[in-house]
């Protein structure tokens, strides 16, 4: 059975980020990262969402973020912060 999680956080960088995650059997089925932050280039977030879809481990989440963050810059939220929130949600969804 799939679990749907949603978390809104106020990032250290001053912007608001909402993460929606749908998980089944410790596998991400769907994910959306929304908010009033900035990403350069803009498509980095969509690339990240695609990379996270079907991730079934923390290592996969970390790899996705590390890969995308090499070629993209965020303003208002930091990559490490985003990684932590995603990992926390994944852990929660796997319990």
């Amino acid at each position, binding site marked *: 059975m799939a679990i749907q999680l949603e978390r809104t956080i106020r990032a250290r960088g001053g912007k608001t980020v909402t993460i929606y995650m749908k998980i089944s059997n410790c596998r991400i089925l769907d994910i959306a990262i929304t908010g*009033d932050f900035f990403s350069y280039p803009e498509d980095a977030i969509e690339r990240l969402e695609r990379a996270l879809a079907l991730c079934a481990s923390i290592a996969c989440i970390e790899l996705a973020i590390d890969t995308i963050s090499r070629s993209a810059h965020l303003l*208002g939220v930091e990559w490490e912060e985003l990684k932590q929130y995603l990992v926390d949600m994944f852990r929660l969804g796997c319990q």
Partner: protein
Amino acid sequence: MRIRLILDLEGADGYRQMAIDEAMLILRSQDRIPDTLRLWVFRPSAVSIGYFQSLYRVVNVELAKTLGVDIVRRFTGGGAVYHEYGGELTYTVTLQIRGELADIQKSYEILCRGIVEAVRMFGLNAEFKPINDVIIHGKKVSGSAQARRGSALLQHGTLMYATNLDTLAKLLTPPREKLQAHGITDIRQRVTTLSLELQRRVDLDEVVKAVISGFKKALGVELYEGSYTEAELRLAEELEPKYRSREWIYRR
């Protein structure tokens, strides 16, 4: 340095305006248009939302429909903005990235200085507040957002001079976490207009003059008045259907 000035104050709807902005960024990145400051208005009034925002989370969509307020998704990040026809001026600055503009956060500060200077011309103590706001006495009067393509950047932003803040507060529905972070319960407590601060009705004409002077001073440039090129108009026409499409507006 000289920068082209485009005054588009008759206004057009937000879909058209967003298409013009994107066309300008693309063409500037191809070196086919000069550095430009464009001053314009949304007609009719609109709410613009950031590229990454989830529409239903941040806008009262039903009320917008009832009031005849367009909902436009920008190609830039940032938050939702209410652009009231007759109460707000929008600026767009499209530049080649050079010098300090290469640093994204710094570039917000440099370009927002145009608005800071404009507001100061009214005798008000405006300040830049990172990442992308201009405030007066702690309240936001202007927000900006920036996109980059290759060697070009585009920053657009609002300056509220007579916006009805009650309408704004009803249309925009920021997450509770955002309000809490600002120590407020209602968005109305965090925003202001030039008219409110000056206790008199400020009109568009004086705001336009101040913003032109503000950017001249902030950027140390001369402005010459120009108009859209054929290429800008043609590309904007091609891009416009995207901004009108449900697929784009409701994509998140």
